[in-house]
């Protein structure tokens, strides 16, 4: 099945001029993009960014806690799991920010529910209806053309839930390239539903057609980023970016963070893939001159409990740090690490609402100052992006 036949089915025999897709795009900050990395399974923040000198850390984690020697030192107080040493250069270059203690009120410990909250901007009192950035990104206005509002490279579309907009899923670049397009005709009808159907088919088709055309033109067969499945997704992301495909949001995912048992080796393994793939992705972005335009951010369901469990793992918890990386990021630590002496029923209290980060990204990165998360604006994040 190729797209040509879809087009035939939907619209053949009808004549309208071929109009390239025009979704108006913003542009005070033209060409900027956000790459979201979902750490699926709930990353253990406390063993990712380690409070080196906190004796309570050792007490909470007598077996799975990391020694100083197993970390790379970020500052006097904090070390990074050494499985992520490949991103060390980004840290040194001041292009990697770590935001401490992100969470939300009314913590939910269900993977499914909590990731839905992060993806729709909700909290314990309810989830959002649409993806956290869909409305604001769709409302962007400007001159440039967009092929898509967002592209999911892992197939997960929860973060892109939206009744409108062009939110695509692309789990294979080759599949996309095999799509070919016909001229798209249309029909003159008063029936709004039919018109919508045909218009939308037309829009999606031309968007996909444009992507596949650009991809085909610039496809690099041998290019590959290491780091397993995440690397493969980043590879696709680079192919898209390099082909000049405009989509302000790209989403990737790396799984396996639900480390209830055997955490030491499992977590190491996951972080190594994350680190390597991210470092290579950054390198590739630099090479094609897109590093300054790109912002990479991690997110995850929740953090894990402060204390380890009896199976050398950790159970579902609350707050966790996240990474914000890019050529325009002011690296270093942001926010405050949760106090391990003031646990709440064994959990770290979040020190910053994660939506403050969303607010900052929409406002300072995309220039959407009047965004959905305005009320979570947090001045502690002032200056996280280079002016």
């Amino acid at each position, binding site marked *: *099945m190729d*797209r040509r*036949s*879809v087009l035939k*089915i*939907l*619209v053949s*025999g*009808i004549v309208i001029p071929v109009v390239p897709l025009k979704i108006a795009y913003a542009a005070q900050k033209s060409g900027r993009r956000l790459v979201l990395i979902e750490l699926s399974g709930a990353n253990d923040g406390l063993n990712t960014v380690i409070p080196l000198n906190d004796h309570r850390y050792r007490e909470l984690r007598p077996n799975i806690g990391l020694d100083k020697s197993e970390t790379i030192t970020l500052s006097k107080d904090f070390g990074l799991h050494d499985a992520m040493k490949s991103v060390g250069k980004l840290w040194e270059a001041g292009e990697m920010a770590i935001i401490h203690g992100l969470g939300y009120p*009314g913590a*939910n410990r*269900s993977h*499914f*529910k909590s990731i*839905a909250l992060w993806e*729709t901007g909700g909290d*314990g*009192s*309810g*989830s*959002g*209806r649409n993806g956290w950035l869909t409305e604001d990104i769709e409302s962007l206005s400007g001159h440039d053309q967009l092929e898509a509002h967002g592209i999911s490279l892992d*197939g997960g579309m*929860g973060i892109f*839930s939206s*009744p*409108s907009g*062009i*939110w*695509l*899923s692309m*789990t*294979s*670049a*080759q*599949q996309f390239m095999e799509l070919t397009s016909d001229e798209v005709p249309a029909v003159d*009808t008063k*029936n*709004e*539903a*039919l018109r*919508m*159907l*045909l218009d*939308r*088919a037309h829009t*999606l088709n031309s968007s*996909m057609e444009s992507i596949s055309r650009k991809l085909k033109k610039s496809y690099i067969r041998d290019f*590959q980023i290491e780091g*397993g*499945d995440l*690397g*493969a997704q980043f*590879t*696709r992301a680079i192919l898209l970016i390099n082909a000049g495909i405009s989509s302000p949001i790209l989403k990737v995912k790396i799984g396996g963070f639900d480390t*209830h048992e055997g955490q030491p080796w499992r977590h190491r393994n996951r972080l190594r893939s994350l680190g390597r793939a991210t470092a290579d992705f950054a390198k590739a972005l630099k090479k094609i001159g897109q590093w300054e335009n790109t912002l990479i951010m991690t997110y995850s369901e929740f953090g894990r409990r402060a*204390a380890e*469990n*009896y*199976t050398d793992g950790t159970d579902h918890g609350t707050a966790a740090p996240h990474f914000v990386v890019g050529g325009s990021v002011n690296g270093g630590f942001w926010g405050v690490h949760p106090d391990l002496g003031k646990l709440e029923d064994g959990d770290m209290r979040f020190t910053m609402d994660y939506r403050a980060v969303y607010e900052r990204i929409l406002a300072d990165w995309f220039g959407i100052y009047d965004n959905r998360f305005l009320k979570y604006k947090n001045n502690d994040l002032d200056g996280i992006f280079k002016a």
Partner: protein
Amino acid sequence: MKTHFIFNFTITLVLAIPFLFFGVASASNYDSKVEQLQRALILTGFNPGKADGLWGGKTARALSMFHKRQKMTLDSVDIQRSINSVYELWNEQQELDESSKDFLQKKIGIGDARHLLERVGIGANIKDVNKLMGMTRSKAISYIINEIKTESWLPLPKFLDGPNPPYWIDGDLNSEEEQSFRVARDREMSEYRIWWVKEMIETPSPQTERLVLFWHNHFVSSYSAINEQSTSIARQNIMFRELGSGNFKMLTKSVIKDPAMLNYLDNEFSEKGKPNENLSRELMELFVLGEGNYSEKTVKEGARALTGYSINKIRNTSFMFDGWRHDNGIKSIFGKSGDFNGDQFVDILFEQENASEFLTRKFWRYFVSEVAENEEEITSIAKRFKRSDFDIRTLLRSVLTSKAFWDESVRATIVKSPVDYLIGTIRSTGFLPADWNTLPNKLSLLGQNLFEHPNVAGWPGGQSWITPSGLLNRSYLAKSFFSSLGSNVENMVNAQTAPVEMTKRSIALRYASEDYKGPSKFKIQLINNIVKREVSMPFMYSDYEVSEKLVGDELIHATLTFKDVTSKLEGMKKVITVGLEGHAVWGDFYGIKLIEDTFEAEIPQELSDYKDTSPGVFFINSDSLRDGRFDKLYRHLSSNDKRILQGLCSHLGKKEFLGNLLVKLSAVESRAGDKFWADKANFNDIQYLSKRCLRSIKKTGLIYSSTHKAVNGHDTEKFGRIKDASQLPWQTLQLNIENGDEFDTVEVTFMNDHCCGPGGSDNGDRNFFVDWIKVDNELFLSSDGEQHGNTCDSDPGELYCSGWVEMRKSISLVDSNSSNKLDSDKRDKLYVERAGLSWMNRFNKNRDWNEIAINLLNVKFNNIRYNAIRIKLVKRKNGNLFLMLSSMGCYPDCFENRWPQKVHKSDRPPYNKDIKISLIRRNNEDHEAHYWGLEKSDRKFVDALWASMPKIFEEIKKGREWKRAVERERTDGWSDTLDFILKTLPKTRYVKSVGSEPLIVRPSQESANMMSMMEGLKTGIPFPANTKPKTSLFEIEKSFRDNHIVSLADLFLAVDPVVVSRTSEDVSSIITDPVYNLK
């Protein structure tokens, strides 16, 4: 079915009075059916008094008036039937009212029939179209509404028969147990999905399912988000069928007590001081009032009203109003203040202006148009809806009788949902695709994964169905819809009546395939592993000698004797002798000669080469290997002898050994012998025979093997990967085989993996999934199996890489069949399936009350049975140590509700009763009264509980909850108390009554569940709209001709097609027109 006798209402009324208080936990004889009847009577102009759900004089009188009016008999009343007949009268009354509206008096033509059916049902089946044609629109609407049912057409899946799975146990399971628990739930979910799809295909009342689908997307709860509580979500779906055509307010009140919803919206643990706002907010925003029609303050107040609306997992995961966690304080909600509970909160919401309009508008979009809203009509329908006190049939009738509904301009203004698109096509054409059982997966591909909404707001519908992948997939599925023509379905239809062939063994395999450029290939093997394993044992000896050499005229012979043969197996024969024989003249090697001294046992005569002349001699040669005699011999041998044979064959075949041996043999006197043993050809022969012998031995362990191609796989190239195993298109392969030999292991091998080439899974994946395999009455679960080969670090049944899953552990499907077997259980023994810690507090001697709560699953003691029971072990500051049993902690009811007179009763809902039984009797008089107040059999049960304590503690220490408690240092302080119990117990009346070890842990009675799962296999294919499936385009088109359908476009398209010709007579192309996406 509840039956009320109409003339004994006075008695019922007397009984009802004491329960007429205002509370959440409705009075015990509140009956929602009675309330529905009362409401229907009110609507129809009879006066049953207040619609309170209590059967009383007024209700009975009103019903009897109704019966008189309808000239019906008055003996006994089936409430549901009464409701239906009252609504029939109501519909007649409505028709009268509508007689003045010309547009409703118009006779239904084919276009109208299709319109009405597609909107209010699923697709438009020709049979239904014919039924409606010629009726007035008004009459047709009555016809539709009268046929709304409150029960499903198909019997419910068997897994819903018994109690719910013990969801309370999952925290105590270790990770392997947890895995199989989850897999079992996934299996139930996928069974329920297929069941619902089947129901939608087959039901003669698609309007019922249309409403269920509406509520499914209005009161959203999703399976993954409620910890995979399959039965809770299934029961919610059943509830929508029961109440979804009744009263909206009643339905809403039922929803706030629905276990799936309470879990989904996090109200389960909402309590005074810490209310969770989720349910309160969605109740207003999404269920009743709509966004913007309430304040954040009201959300908070409403949340307080809903505190304590909880779930009792022990009691079959059912709703429980917990008065202790409910906030009794004054709340102010929409200008009213009072100590409202959740039900009263709902009442207040329904008093609000927006309540009627909100749902009316949603109905409008669902039934009339997604693009055009007629405000005037919506307002007037909303008013009528409110006047009916939120009667759903009134709302439905009002919407269907609106002018707009019949206006040509609303045709093709609703985007078909995936259910409309796929199941509608099946119903409309009568054609059942051979892969119909993958429909849940197909619906998911189109974006409507049943029971997995994208979020609490449900599927937005309309243009959101038209996504890039949605478009591609719709088009693909439309084009390939008729491609599975004919024989498959025909066979399925025939198979339902075909007699079962008699064969030795039947195999069923449940599998799923993710295809990539073709289907998966897999192999099923039955193996006798004991036999197979022996092959790998080493063969060791201290020395060997050539004990006899003979060169005759014709015969060349050598006997080899191995000394001190050892092996890991005890009792191995120490000296083993074997012969090698050939023909002196021709120089041919005869074979390896097994003789009397080779084995411990004798070689059976019937297998011997020289039956008559020299019995007990067997030649391993091409003949015996070929004609099956070797296999027979091998199977006949004891384990030791098998090992000997295997050792000999493997040793003789070794190049080095054989080389040396032949040199030794050829360095002898006779020229003939010399030449013979030095002959390279004979060396090759011996080696060849030993290899063949070994291969034959290996094969002997293999009882059965067959290779298959997966069917109905999910094409990852077209549709991408599936992330959740429960959503795979599961298939069941059934075969019969002739071989009846014994086996102990089943292996399913995935043979043609495709993945992980350059670029990773980017270029497509072919994966294979095994759920279980059944061989006769033995069921092997892959979750209990082991994965071998290239395992890709995945769970046993998930073959992401080439490899095989080996299954040895099986569940017998026979035993559980005879529950009589339990009668042989010993008297006064306490049988449980599992004992697990529920919780315990850290022991604090200054605290007045320290407790450990323990859950027991499937408890049986003499004639007493509980599905689940929670006992508490309590230590008071005054030294009292007792067991506590409470009405909240038994399912079914503790002591069948025979409580001692002096039972302790709580004064708050759920008005818990409990008894306390002291370890030492002098401790407390009340406790003694509890004990002696029990009936004798129950007292003995309590004895057994106490006497089992030491063993119970042994058991709970195996579970995860205990380990967690250890980790949190909760167990330490208890050791003195537990020691005391151990020491004291032997002297107590409890042990004297039932002995010291009454507890028997009898693990999982899974087989019963599995049996019911197997039942699901037997159900056949669905008949679209209850007619025999058409199996070819020819048949479909013939059915249209027979029914005098002139234009297919009229039957299938809401407006003129934009691509295909309006006069097309080709169904397969009509359904590919873009207009077919609309209704």
